[in-house]
């Protein structure tokens, strides 16, 4: 394989090209609203050194993890229940459609209005935004469960928990992973809005502050930190999980 066919080399090249384009454009335009990558890197290092960025990033990450966990757990439970019981599904289908179509901003505003500008309201708003997606995905997975394997489990008198763990869960795994990926992408966008509207710390709050100051370099520095973090989650947690779960495949 030649050097230019390796995925890692290609990835490195594409990132270099991206940085070069950015640099060239910034030099050419020469404005405050598009700083060069070097300036952004300096800001990034300063913010990390001062402890500001780690503090706000950890606040956001904390909200993200809590609301993500709640949404996934609840969503899986409800999704499996709806997928297994037709009547429940018919009954709650309309609710799902309603919740799927409420704009994120509306839920956030209502949560703050009804429950006050508190942490739990912020997390609730994120959960409500994410939950219907998880339910729909997991419900789809549950509907497509292999009835032959379920019969096998019944015939060999598998207990409920055994059936869930060894027969149902592995079949739902790809659906849950899909919900996880789309979930992370969705949640971290919503978390920022939630923080911007009603919290006094976190990435969203900081970005709002920088926006008022027209401090683009800081905005970009925070963005880079955040994107890196999300990529880290993907590479260090999700990819290995995928790999482990799929080793039985041909």
């Amino acid at each position: 394989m030649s050097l230019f066919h390796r995925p890692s080399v290609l990835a490195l090249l594409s990132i270099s090209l991206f940085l070069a384009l950015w640099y060239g454009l910034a030099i050419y335009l020469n404005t405050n609203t598009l700083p060069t990558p070097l300036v952004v890197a300096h800001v990034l290092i300063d913010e990390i050194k001062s402890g500001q960025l780690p503090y706000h990033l950890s606040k956001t990450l904390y909200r993200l993890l809590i609301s993500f966990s709640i949404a996934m757990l609840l969503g899986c439970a409800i999704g499996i229940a709806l997928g297994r019981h037709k009547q429940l599904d018919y009954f709650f289908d309309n609710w799902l459609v309603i919740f799927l179509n409420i704009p994120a901003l509306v839920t956030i505003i209502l949560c703050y209005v009804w429950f006050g500008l508190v942490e739990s309201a912020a997390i609730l708003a994120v959960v409500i935004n994410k939950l219907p997606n998880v339910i729909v995905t997991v419900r789809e997975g549950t509907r497509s469960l292999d009835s032959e394997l379920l019969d096998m489990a019944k015939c060999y008198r598998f207990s409920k928990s055994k059936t869930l763990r060894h027969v149902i869960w592995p079949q739902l795994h790809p659906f849950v992973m899909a919900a996880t990926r789309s979930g992370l992408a969705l949640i971290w966008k919503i978390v920022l809005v939630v923080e911007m509207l009603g919290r006094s710390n976190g990435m969203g709050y900081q970005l709002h502050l920088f926006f008022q100051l027209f401090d683009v370099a800081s905005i970009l520095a925070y963005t880079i930190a955040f994107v890196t973090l999300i990529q880290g989650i993907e590479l260090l947690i999700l990819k290995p999980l995928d790999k482990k779960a799929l080793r039985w495949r041909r």
Partner: protein
Amino acid sequence: MTQLAIHIGDKSYINPADNSSKQVIKDLRLTLAKNEFVCLVGPSGCGKTTLLNILANLDTQYTGTIELQPIHKQPKVGYVFQNPRLLPWRTVRENIQLAAGAKPETLDFLLQSMGLADEKNSYPEHLSLGMNRRVSIIRAFATDPDLLLMDEPFVSLDPPTARLVRQLLIDLWTKRPHKVLFVTHDLREAITLADRLIFLSTSPMSVLAEVPVTIPRKDRLQEVEIEQFRQQLFIDYPQIAELL
């Protein structure tokens, strides 16, 4: 000595489209003696799989009784399905253990006698269909069931593989005998395996004839013996000719 008595009075399917009902099984009576190997022979689509699903308690919409006598107990069932129905995300060993919870030495003995000792940590998708079939047979034996059900477990295997697995099955059954109900539409296979043949009519299914197989087991490797018995069957029971 426990025997198994089966009586299915009526099993009907209701067609939801026009609410008409179709009777699949009518007044079917079977008994199995201890460690008896019985082959159910009948045309495809006559309701044999339905019967096995009833016996395995997967289908409860019927009238009738299934019990071990004289203790009046619902039998514990090991089921070898037409498809192996193994969990692809669990290894051979885990698949058997999950269903059976057998002792490690029992498990190793079973794997050994089915020629799968080297494959116990493989995943089913990495093995051939014949091997998967063998795993599903082991799984059924490992549960030490009151009744072993087998639903045409050798279809879609090429003849040499089918012969091999059939031989392995008989060897294993000789070492660990159980009551077996083996469904097939292949008369030669049935004669090779069974102590007794039961011929079933098309729907509604009921017993048409019961024939003990008189060939000693050691002579059954010879095709000639099997073929002679088969020809004699058609002469003695002309009604079965139209079934097959």
